[in-house]
């Protein structure tokens, strides 16, 4: 039995918040997805099972709606509203992304609903928050991200190429992460006080505070970061850290060595591969390996020795990367204590022995497809209250009768 067992969530279906509902459901909450009679539009998003479009074949919908039940309910009808109020009376959380005035126009906003459930936690996730009319304009993951900062920091050294938005609905994800954190915070508060509350979340604000130095370089020192290929956007250009290896795949060379023991191991490996003699700056690696006292990174650019040693470490890593395969570079560097990474495609990571050993891939029985499907698994491992997919994504209205009959 997981930690949110006994917590009932009403989710008014919207692709913007589906992930928050999944985070809740996979930790044991009873998530009831309320859909219009024609179904949530993301039921028809590709990709599809066996590339065949059709009912209950959208892999997009299947992923974002695990551990939920589906009920058809039309809030525009009187019986629909009556059932909704009864449902709220049995619920702990309302999760929605409706147009900002819709629920109040239906007399179903927070102030109305607490008459039926005084300790309700009502979470509204909208593009700009409940008080902004902009929230009712159409948006997509791409346009939200553009407004809120991430693409400004992301792209290439060549600024004639457009800024880049990363794939995977990460803009929606970020709003949903804040929704889930907010709900957990409100539940901890309710446990002690018995009180619920209304929580207003802005998706663009969530992305605005998820841009690291893009934001705080401006807040602190009035400086603007500029995007660079495969590495952090920065106020002053930094050295490249993404290298194409001998097998054509890329690695991220990470933070170059900065401690004597790291220089020592790098030097040993460098010699072992047979590159040390071809590198005029090996002497600086040796200096790094025998450095005494703090190696103060803030003195790069000021202190000549520190600058030369740091730069030699970076150059040595690049030379090694170009001489061997990406995987060998990743394993070799990590064994030398250096934080570097192979740039995997998602499926390559999924197939890596490490994630298999951690039990990341999980099997979900699809009675409807007459097969078992392997899903991405737990983002965190809580042994006393485990994450799990309790059921496959629901068919449209699959649980209408069983849920409404209980009211």
């Amino acid at each position, binding site marked *: 039995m997981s930690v949110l067992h006994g917590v009932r969530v009403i989710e008014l279906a919207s692709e913007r918040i589906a992930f928050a509902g999944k985070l809740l459901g996979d930790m044991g909450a009873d998530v009831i997805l309320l859909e219009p009679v024609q179904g949530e539009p993301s039921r028809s998003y*590709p990709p599809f099972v066996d590339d065949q479009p059709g009912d209950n074949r959208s*892999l997009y919908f299947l992923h974002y709606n695990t551990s939920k039940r589906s009920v058809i309910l039309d809030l525009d009808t009187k019986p629909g509203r009556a059932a909704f109020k009864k449902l709220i009376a049995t619920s702990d959380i309302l999760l929605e992304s409706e147009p900002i005035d819709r629920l109040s126009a239906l007399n179903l906003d927070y102030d109305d609903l607490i008459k039926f459930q005084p300790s309700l936690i009502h979470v509204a996730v909208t593009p700009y928050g409940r008080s902004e009319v902009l929230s009712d304009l159409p948006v997509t993951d*791409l346009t939200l991200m553009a407004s*809120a900062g991430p693409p400004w920091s992301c792209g290439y050294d060549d*600024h004639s190429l457009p800024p880049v938005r*990363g794939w*995977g609905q*990460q803009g929606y994800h970020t709003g949903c992460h804040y929704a889930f954190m907010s709900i957990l915070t409100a539940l901890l508060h309710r446990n002690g006080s018995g009180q619920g509350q209304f929580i207003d979340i802005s998706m663009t604000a969530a992305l605005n505070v998820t841009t690291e130095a*893009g934001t705080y370089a401006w807040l602190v020192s009035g400086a603007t970061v500029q995007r660079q290929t495969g590495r952090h956007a920065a106020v002053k250009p930094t050295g490249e850290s993404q290298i194409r290896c001998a097998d054509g795949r890329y690695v991220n060379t990470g933070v170059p060595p900065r401690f004597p023991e790291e220089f020592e191991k790098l030097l040993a490996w460098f010699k072992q591969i047979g590159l040390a003699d071809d590198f005029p700056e090996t002497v600086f690696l040796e200096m790094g390996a025998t450095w005494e006292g703090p190696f103060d990174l803030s003195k790069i650019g000021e202190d000549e020795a520190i600058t030369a040693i740091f730069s030699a470490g970076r150059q040595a890593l690049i030379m090694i990367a170009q001489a061997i395969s990406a995987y060998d570079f990743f394993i070799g560097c990590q064994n030398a204590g250096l934080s570097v990474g192979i740039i995997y495609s998602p499926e390559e990571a999924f197939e890596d022995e490490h994630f298999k050993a951690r039990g990341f891939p999980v099997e979900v029985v699809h009675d409807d497809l007459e097969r078992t499907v392997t899903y991405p698994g737990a983002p965190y491992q809580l042994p006393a209250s485990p994450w799990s997919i309790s059921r496959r994504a629901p068919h449209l209205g699959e649980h209408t009768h069983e849920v409404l009959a209980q009211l």
Partner: protein
Amino acid sequence: MAGALSHIRICDFTGQLAGAGATKWLAAFGAEVIRIEDPVKEGRWDILRATPPFVDDRRGVDFGGGFNNHNTDKKGITLNLRTDKGKQILTEIIKKSDAVTENFAAGVLEKWGFGYADLKRIKADIVYVSNCGFGHNGPYSSFKTWGPIVQAISGLTFSSGLPGQPPAGWGYSYMDHTGGYYMAMAIMLALLERDNSGRGQWVDLACTDAGLSLNGPALLDWTVNQRPMRQSEGIDSNRSQFAPMAPHGIYPCSGEDEWIAIACRDDQEWLKLTEVMENNQQTSPRTSWCRDYDEMKYRLDHQDELDKKLAGWTRQQEKFSLQEDLRQARIPVGAVQKPQERIDQDPTTAKAGLWPTITHSKMGQVRVDGMPVQFSRTPWQMNHGGPCLGEHTEQVLTELLHKSPDEVAQLKEEGVI
């Protein structure tokens, strides 16, 4: 005013962003977060303590701008855990804490004598959340990471880029922010479990697990359809990965490095877009090339040329006035905002109180990232900057552990604090 988490105390070893970001959330909602740092190395394990940006010419462990941003309203104490007395004091703090949190490399805390078995002996229902790149189990558990490495491993770097180019990655540590979010979730989930059952637990959080879980539909496309994301034609992540939308991209505007994101979800939005083009062009009626693209399927099949033609038009438009025109027409649009534009010129972020000014004991008044949420009953608060090294050592030792000023002075002399 009491916050939602005012009843919670965290014994906090986190740093950087992936850890510190988690306890920043808890502190904003009233939790008492006590950061434990090493006096010998001046807390430099958290490299952000002494790295840019800086508010002025002052440098050192109390002046890192990122550190201040990620550690608002936390207390900071120094404790030398190489000494027995230091370990004793830590034990006393753990006894009075609800959770112990850290994002060291796997096994570091255990080496100091404070692994989960030790923590449980000190306080039976303690919540322990460790956060490291690969977790404490699995073949790579001894490997080290930071944000960009997590992104590289978990597929997120690969899936951000343009065709014919190397991966663009994220340009910042998306997975340090997001790893921090998952850590905050893990801490709160475990505290809720303790409320339910009285049991504590150790949550072994791996940022790469969290990162990999953010590729859901692409992974199902792999497991069900055997379709890999690594394909010879490369990827264009400015295009729509799921719902069919075209045009869907980031297009140039007039001026230097000015861009706008535009998406058309259906034929109606495309028709409205062509009307805006017609109005803005003033020279020609709806151009014949537009008519070729009136059907979504055609637009999807000819995105390269469509993007080129659309860019030819957007290039002549001013970014914010085009955004206004497209908003009026109810077409999904977003100007690519620079930091100064979204922070100082976008009224929506200021109105939401997203950039609170806090007071740092040495830096003075500094703006920081706030929280993008408004709670009606227990709002978040941010008042104080990140703690200077050892700023609250004396306070915590006297107020929480009831040490006398003489004892504190003695500990200082012995190099324990």
